[in-house]
């Protein structure tokens, strides 16, 4: 996995931290909304069912109340006929009233005038197999029929039977007016109100088409439960659809009122609330992510910029442009970086100055050293006027040879410097020997040759940057071992000493000496070439080159 980006991480954390409370709150709110809405839906259904029930009840109780007034009236009597006739005329929803004796025979009949039945057709007929008669006479209680088509009017009707002292009073009640009454039930189209008789047959349905298509509800769970006297479920299936509904039982008649709604319709509000909640949650989350990403970027960008400033400081640009950040911490960070940058710059300056000072001190020291060496050279030459300028000229020639040989700067510097003092040991040689115009005796010669060792002794304890003392000691050694004081050969002799040896011989021969006149440069070169075995071949080659090119600085 790639290294995580700071801005992504911040956005993620921000989202997660924002989302957890949102989620908890949302679930809580959602559950609450669901419950409240469900309660509201149930309460609404309950109320509607209760209303329909009480209206239906009132409607059905009215004729029963009228029939109870016949309690002491004898079927077939004059009083009965008058009372029945009076009741039928005064109650327009009662189609007929018959009083049946205790054998089931109709003794009194009164029919609403104008309907398709003659009263005398009803008198004397047998009603003993009428279920309502059977209930009222057998159990002495009021009985209501289910809804049926009245043969009196052809309208839908119910029959009420009330036990009286000498039989049963029965009324056929046109329930079309009940439908009109209940049709006042107005609601949103998804809620259905159904009134069912005890056989589960539709008495009233708020949806006329449904009444045709679902005429009987004996297979619907809450209806079956209520008719069987048990608690009706609130949620059930109807023709494959999930429903929520309330039931209520019409007192006495045992009819069922069912107010129901498809579950999806009942909970439309909940669904909308959830959709709104989820949409809001999504929007808030997206906004939170954007804010978090922006916030993270507002930090990450300055961090990267400060990083660039740091890199710029590293590359020597000590005063990067200022960014003027929003956050005080970032401004502080930038100021700290700038402070650090200044401190680095100041320290670098001071270091440079120190180095320069040191460098100058070194130069001074070197110059002093050279001055000292030259002074020493002059001291020697002061003692031996004939060799005046000898060391300086040797130095020049030796440097030319070194240069021609391509030697490094340090070796060349050592050669040049040492040449200046290579005869310093002569200070310890008696002046008369040095200036003696005649040939020296062996002893004198021995004393004169001591100047190499004497020079070594004088210089060996001085901390020159080069092995000056050793070179001085060896400047009279020869590659064939014929030199002094140690008779060293070839590479046993320091390179500087080998170069100086050649320059010393050439300069000495080409200069005047107390004991002879100058032999000239040609003779000097000739001497070297003809005795080349005594010298370093490279040095000899360089000398010949310089000579051939006329560049010998003497």
């Amino acid at each position: 996995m790639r290294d995580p980006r700071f801005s992504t991480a911040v956005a993620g954390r921000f989202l997660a931290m924002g989302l957890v409370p949102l989620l908890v709150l949302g679930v809580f709110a959602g559950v609450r909304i669901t419950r409240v809405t469900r309660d509201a839906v149930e309460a609404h259904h309950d109320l509607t069912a209760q209303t329909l029930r009480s209206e239906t009840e009132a409607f059905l109780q009215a004729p029963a109340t009228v029939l109870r007034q016949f309690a002491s009236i004898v079927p077939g009597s004059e009083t009965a006929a008058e009372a029945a006739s009076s009741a039928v005329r005064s109650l327009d929803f009662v189609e007929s009233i018959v009083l049946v004796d205790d054998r089931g025979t109709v003794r009194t009949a009164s029919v609403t005038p104008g309907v398709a039945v003659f009263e005398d057709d009803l008198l004397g007929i047998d009603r003993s197999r009428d279920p309502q008669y059977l209930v009222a006479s057998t159990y002495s209680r009021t009985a209501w029929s289910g809804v049926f088509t009245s043969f009196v009017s052809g309208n839908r009707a119910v029959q009420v039977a009330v036990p009286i002292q000498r039989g049963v009073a029965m009324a056929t009640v046109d329930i079309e007016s009940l439908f009109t009454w209940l049709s006042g039930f107005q609601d949103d189209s998804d809620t259905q109100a159904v009134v069912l008789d005890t056989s589960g047959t539709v008495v009233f349905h708020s949806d006329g088409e449904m009444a045709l298509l679902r005429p009987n509800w004996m297979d619907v769970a809450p209806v079956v439960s209520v008719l069987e006297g048990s608690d009706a479920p609130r949620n059930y299936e109807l023709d494959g659809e999930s429903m929520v509904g309330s039931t209520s039982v019409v007192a006495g008649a045992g009819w069922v009122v069912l107010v129901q709604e498809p579950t999806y319709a009942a909970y439309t509000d909940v669904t909308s609330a959830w959709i709104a909640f989820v949409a809001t949650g999504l929007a808030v989350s997206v906004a939170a992510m954007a804010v978090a990403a922006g916030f993270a970027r507002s930090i990450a960008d300055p961090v990267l910029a400060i990083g660039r400033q740091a890199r710029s400081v590293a590359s020597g640009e000590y005063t990067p442009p200022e960014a003027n950040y929003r956050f005080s911490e970032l401004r502080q960070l930038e100021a700290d970086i700038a402070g650090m940058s200044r401190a680095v710059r100041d320290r670098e300056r001071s270091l440079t100055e120190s180095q320069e000072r040191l460098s100058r001190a070194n130069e001074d020291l070197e110059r002093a050293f050279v001055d000292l060496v030259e002074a020493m050279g002059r001291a020697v030459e002061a003692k031996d006027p004939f060799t005046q300028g000898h060391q300086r000229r040797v130095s020049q020639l030796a440097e030319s040879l070194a240069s021609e040989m391509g030697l490094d700067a340090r070796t060349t510097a050592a050669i040049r410097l040492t040449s200046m003092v290579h005869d310093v040991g002569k200070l310890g040689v008696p002046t008369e020997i040095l200036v003696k115009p005649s040939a020296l005796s062996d002893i004198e010669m021995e004393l004169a040759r001591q100047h190499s060792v004497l020079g070594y002794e004088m210089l060996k304890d001085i901390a020159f940057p080069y092995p000056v003392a050793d070179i001085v000691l060896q400047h009279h050694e020869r590659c064939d071992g014929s030199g002094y004081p140690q008779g060293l050969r070839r590479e046993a002799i320091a390179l500087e000493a080998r170069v100086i040896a050649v320059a010393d011989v050439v300069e000495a021969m080409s200069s005047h000496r107390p004991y002879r006149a100058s032999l000239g440069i040609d003779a000097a070169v000739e001497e070297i070439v003809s005795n080349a075995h005594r010298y370093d071949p490279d040095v000899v080659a360089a000398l010949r080159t310089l000579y051939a090119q006329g560049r010998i600085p003497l």
Partner: protein
Amino acid sequence: MKIGRFGAAALVLTMLTSMGIGLPGCAPSAPSTGEAVLIGYAGGLSGRGSSLGVAGRDGALLAVADANASGGIDGRPIALAVADDSAPGTTADEAVRDLVERGVVAIVGPMTSSAAWAGARVATESRVPLIGPTVSTDMLSGKDDWFFRTYPTNDVPAGLMARRMAAVAGEVHAAVVYDLANEAHTATWTQNFSEAVQETGGSVVLELPFTSGKNPHYSELAEQIAASGADCVLLLANSIDAAMIGQRIAVLGLDVTIGASEWTATEDLISYGGSAVEGLMFYNSYDRSYSGGEYRAVVDRFRERFGYEPDFGAIQAYEATSILIEAARFGADPETIRETLTGTSHFDGLQGPIVFDRFGDVQRTHFPMTVSDGVFVAAGTP
């Protein structure tokens, strides 16, 4: 890992979303209707004669529900469109036309012969098959039209009734009381019965028409029967009218043998007729005591769903609707259904095969029935 946590946040969001959708009761779950095959039902659902129409409607509803429970027609659900052909101000031809306009592929109904007579004309004009479950009139027999029936013509039961009365009364002196409101049924029944009575050596002494719903005076009808001296009475009337006439005959104390057509024999006959209709004779076009599994299962389902015993109207409508659905499996459009019905001679009925002739008319066995102690019972062979 930080990115992982970011991913977790997204997951939580997803969960939230799915929770919202998944909460019980929150998801819209309206039933899918698909493209339903619409079948019509026309019958009398209001007024005095409505018990037959209501029973037929319930039988058709059960047949549709049963077919849908076993997958509909090639997976397409079946829907029933219902029209009341006896509602105030409605006639049978209007009810059939209404169903045709609603786009039905075929129509079950009407239930009475007179309504069928009017409906068949509209069906033939509209080229939509009409299948009458309980239409018995001879007037629609042997015709090459868009009308089909699963009910036998009434010549056979009329003949059986005449011979059964003769077996009880010897020489029959019959009074026929018939309802002009269903004249297509009653007129042919009367004619067939009269001819059959004469074949037994008896005679029809009285033909007494009345019109149901038009203020029939049952007492007067009974008195006319009494005056005719008839020993047998044939009631060609709906159950309530028949019950009331029976009641008046009983009140007069007439000693007569009463017969009726199957049309009359619904539960209302007993509830309104009481003891007055004890011994009433009729023929069922099916065997009420049939013990075959599918028949009994349908009866049980019917009782469970509608809360009452299916009568002949319910059983006939169930069969007719099932036949229509079977025919629609060969092509759920009016033309194909008609061709299938015309080209098929056998359908599986609830009590064995139903056999059609080339005009779409059917032959059935007739079972002698009577009312005994307030229930319909088999009367045994006369």
